[in-house]
């Protein structure tokens, strides 16, 4: 008997971001509020990070609540309903259940069941990883409308006495719906990892270590700030440039640069290394939102759109980078 010929899926010729949404923790936390335990000051924190305030969620709000709020906005902005979503990708490092995935619970809340749903762990690069996957899913025919969410309640993962990263962190969620398009709306994703530098930024200890030695206490985030700064500020612009090249555009043809909001000093140095013309608007949401890991790029993008600094149809270069080490960048047409 001859083997029958299988049908393989084919998808849309192009994809783009159809809508975007944002949710920030409702509490404004000032530098003075957190300076005491790290023996610091508002001036020192602003000078080192560019952060004036950060947004943190209340005790009764979890990462899925933030996700849902951002996702509902993104779905509405795309002119769709939950039922139109057939894949949900949630990027988070602060959903504290090993299984099931938060994405499945979120899909149900949004009325997207039976959408395919899974979480990804790519830290601060997670949103760009998700956009890269969504682009591939839509163009392969695996899904028609993909909801990508970067969501974090980083305040669950901080040590108030830690001077390396905790004081930077905020809570929020950003979401985007990716779907078919009659023009190319998402450039090639340049992505990668370097696990040899896994210790540069990440969790102080694992869950099994905590189980075996409860005295270790709740794990929190730590980083080797100088090492991470050097990698982010000087290596990541090379990845961003590759994303521009792969998309076939030059720096003077884009309207916005939206890097992960890690630290204003990193953002400034990246912009310098990329030789961006003054006409390119730079996402600087970190100043009053803080570093929200995987949520930071869509939050900054949404803000630029809301404030009218950019408009629908403009080109934005976005790049996420963080614990892994991992990174991902692409040029997108703004919705």
């Amino acid at each position: 008997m001859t083997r029958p010929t299988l049908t393989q899926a084919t998808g849309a010729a192009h994809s783009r971001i159809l809508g975007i949404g944002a949710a920030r923790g409702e509490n404004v936390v000032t530098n003075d509020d957190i300076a005491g335990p790290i023996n610091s000051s508002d001036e020192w924190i602003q000078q080192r990070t560019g952060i004036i305030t950060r947004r943190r969620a209340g005790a009764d709000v979890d990462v899925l609540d933030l996700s849902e709020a951002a996702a509902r906005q993104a779905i509405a902005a795309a002119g769709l309903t939950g039922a139109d979503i057939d894949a949900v990708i949630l990027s988070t490092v602060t959903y504290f259940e090993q299984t099931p995935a938060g994405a499945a619970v979120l899909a149900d809340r949004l009325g997207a069941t039976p959408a395919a749903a899974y979480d990804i762990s790519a830290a601060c690069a997670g949103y760009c990883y998700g956009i890269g996957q969504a682009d591939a899913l839509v163009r392969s025919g695996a899904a028609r409308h993909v909801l990508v969410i970067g969501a974090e309640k980083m305040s669950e993962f901080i040590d108030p006495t830690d001077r390396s990263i905790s004081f930077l962190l905020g809570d929020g969620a950003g979401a985007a719906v990716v779907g078919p398009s009659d023009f190319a709306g998402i450039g090639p994703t340049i992505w990668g990892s370097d696990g040899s530098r896994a210790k540069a930024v990440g969790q102080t200890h694992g869950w099994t270590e905590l189980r075996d030695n409860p005295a270790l206490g709740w794990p929190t985030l730590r980083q080797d700030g100088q090492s991470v700064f050097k990698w982010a500020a000087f290596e990541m612009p090379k990845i961003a440039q590759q994303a521009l090249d792969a998309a076939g555009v030059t720096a003077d043809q884009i309207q916005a640069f939206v890097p992960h909001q890690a630290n204003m000093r990193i953002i400034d140095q990246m912009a310098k290394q990329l030789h961006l013309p003054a006409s390119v608007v730079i996402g600087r949401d970190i100043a009053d939102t803080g570093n929200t890991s995987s949520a930071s790029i869509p939050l900054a993008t949404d803000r630029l759109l809301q404030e009218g600094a950019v408009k629908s149809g403009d080109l934005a270069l976005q790049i996420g980078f963080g614990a892994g080490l991992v990174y991902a960048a692409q040029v997108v047409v703004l919705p």
Partner: protein
Amino acid sequence: MANSEQEILAGLAEIVSEETGLPTDSVLPEKSFTDDLDIDSLSMMTIVTLAEEKFEVRIPDDEVKNLVTVGDAVSFIAKAQA
């Protein structure tokens, strides 16, 4: 190509001046990056990275804490070039 220590000092002073706005003639071998020139840890990493590119040497991240004075950095770069 190896540079003389004088050339390294002059090149380093330009990098420090560009990063901090300090005049190049204030960047002297005996000056401490932190205590005298008021250079913070992130600016130090910027200076180190730009020095690596300018002098075509590798300065490992772990080594940066040992570069207390401008002279320490000049010596390290000179040795790395040798």
